[in-house]
């Protein structure tokens, strides 16, 4: 029982990181119908910025905020300078834009070692090394803190989307771009802010994930888990992404531990199976809306 709890919490802690990255994917998907394959690499890039700020002597939480601010600007600039023009010329074809995000993925992933070198950077453990005892299991402060951050994210997201004029406009654009423009919403600016917000969430995910040591491959695997999480929860549902992330985290940790042949090497397998099953049984995800095409 205590061992089970231990792995459950470990899974929840990892899941909170996937959830955070999945929220980033969902924000962009909702606004633009686009899967941003560069989301993980953008997060990795921001995490190096967090590291630099921390290395320069800033307290870790402040360094994370610096990284998130950097992420916001980075996301907004990428949208404005790259995504918007390509989208405009693609005339409704999503493929060119997806290709551009894959290009960004490659560019960022090869740029990082050029800037910061290939050695793994020592990175602070969020909330320190301690742990508490719970029903005989020892739960680290890091896991508890990460879960608390996730809770905070949910509240902040809810407040932004349900309680602010900006959030209302972002939801309007997500639902119907053309009508929003005709109602007076500057759609381009909303998309920019959406990309900025998503990248800021990505930076936060990176800051929580990099305690294992920071290299340019930091977010490769988490991105795949985040895709699984968003698929599970529904690509148009931020709440679904959070639940999906936690489920994916728990399922991978528990199956790695309890199903002998999976272990650490095949950890990705359960996540992949999860995606497959969801796509077969409920393609819109647990909390997603069925796409209804009205003529």
């Amino acid at each position, binding site marked *: 029982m205590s061992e089970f709890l231990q792995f459950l919490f470990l899974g929840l802690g990892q899941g909170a990181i996937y959830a955070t990255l999945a929220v980033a994917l969902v924000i962009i998907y909702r606004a633009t119908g686009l899967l941003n394959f560069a989301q993980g690499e953008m997060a990795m890039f921001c995490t190096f910025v967090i590291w630099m700020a921390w290395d320069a002597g800033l307290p870790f939480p402040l360094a994370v905020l610096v990284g998130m601010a950097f992420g916001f600007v980075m996301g907004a600039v990428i949208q404005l300078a790259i995504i918007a023009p390509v989208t405009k010329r693609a005339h409704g074809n999503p493929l060119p834009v997806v290709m551009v995000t894959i290009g960004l993925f490659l560019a960022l992933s090869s740029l990082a070692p050029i800037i910061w070198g290939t050695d793994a950077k020592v990175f602070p453990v969020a909330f320190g090394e301690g742990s508490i005892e719970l029903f005989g299991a020892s739960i680290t402060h890091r896991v508890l803190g990460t879960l608390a951050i996730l809770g905070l994210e949910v509240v902040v997201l809810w407040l932004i989307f349900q309680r602010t*004029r900006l959030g209302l406009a972002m939801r*309007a654009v997500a639902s119907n771009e*053309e009508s929003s*423009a005709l*109602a*007076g919403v500057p759609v381009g600016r909303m998309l920019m802010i959406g990309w900025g917000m998503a990248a800021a969430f990505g930076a936060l995910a990176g800051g929580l994930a990099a305690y294992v040591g920071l290299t340019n491959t930091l977010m490769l695997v988490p991105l795949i888990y985040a895709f699984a999480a968003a698929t599970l929860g529904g690509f148009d549902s931020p709440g679904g992404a959070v639940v999906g992330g936690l489920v994916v985290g728990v399922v991978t940790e528990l199956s790695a531990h309890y199903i002998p042949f999976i272990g650490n090497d095949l950890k990705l397998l359960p996540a992949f199976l999860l995606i497959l099953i969801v796509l077969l049984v409920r393609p819109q995800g647990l909390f997603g809306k069925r796409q209804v095409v009205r003529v």
Partner: protein
Amino acid sequence: MNGALLEVANLEAGYGPVEVLRNVHFSVASGEIVVILGANGAGKTTTLRAISGMIGCRGSVVFAGQSIRGRRPDQLVAAGIAHVPQGRGTITDLTVEENLRIGAYCRRDGEVDADIARWFDVFPRLGERATQPAGSMSGGEQQMLAIARALMARPTLLLLDEPSLGLAPLVTKELFAQLATVNAETGTAVLVVEQNANLALAIAHRGYVLEVGELVASGSAEELMTDEAIRKAYLGF
């Protein structure tokens, strides 16, 4: 016509290589209701889309003394032009009240809530459904919502694209009566494109007839209503 609120001249627009509008001239004065009649495919929607900046165009489009050609739709809303597109264009995932709030996005004054209450008074059905998703309402209710949302911007010019489309005759009649009232009370000019000539001409001051991309007739609402050819083509009697 000097001092017109909207003055369109030599308007040409289309989609890629397809030319739809040729040499279109018309105007709308402050507080006026103007109707453009035209059959399917005449270019009515294209005309409105060109004015509100949704598609590119050539020629001159002058609103309140300023050229507005090439401006973005959201900038035009702030300048005073609100466009209710064909097929209503309500934001179906938002509630009725949220749709109205979005309509006031360009405004910074503190009277948004008062305006919402006002349009709920004028369109009581919207008030009853304030917290429902717009997508769950009937076609007629959504058309009212779309118009109320456009009015939330406090426009000086309202562009309406076939508001009668898909509505029962009685609902359409009620809607046009409400439009006439709104126009009389707020002084908002209305440019409405329609196939339903009867009802549109009944509330309009002036009208134009658009045929395959060109304006072929114009006159006061009475003149158009009594014109033999127009009666045959658009009024059906």
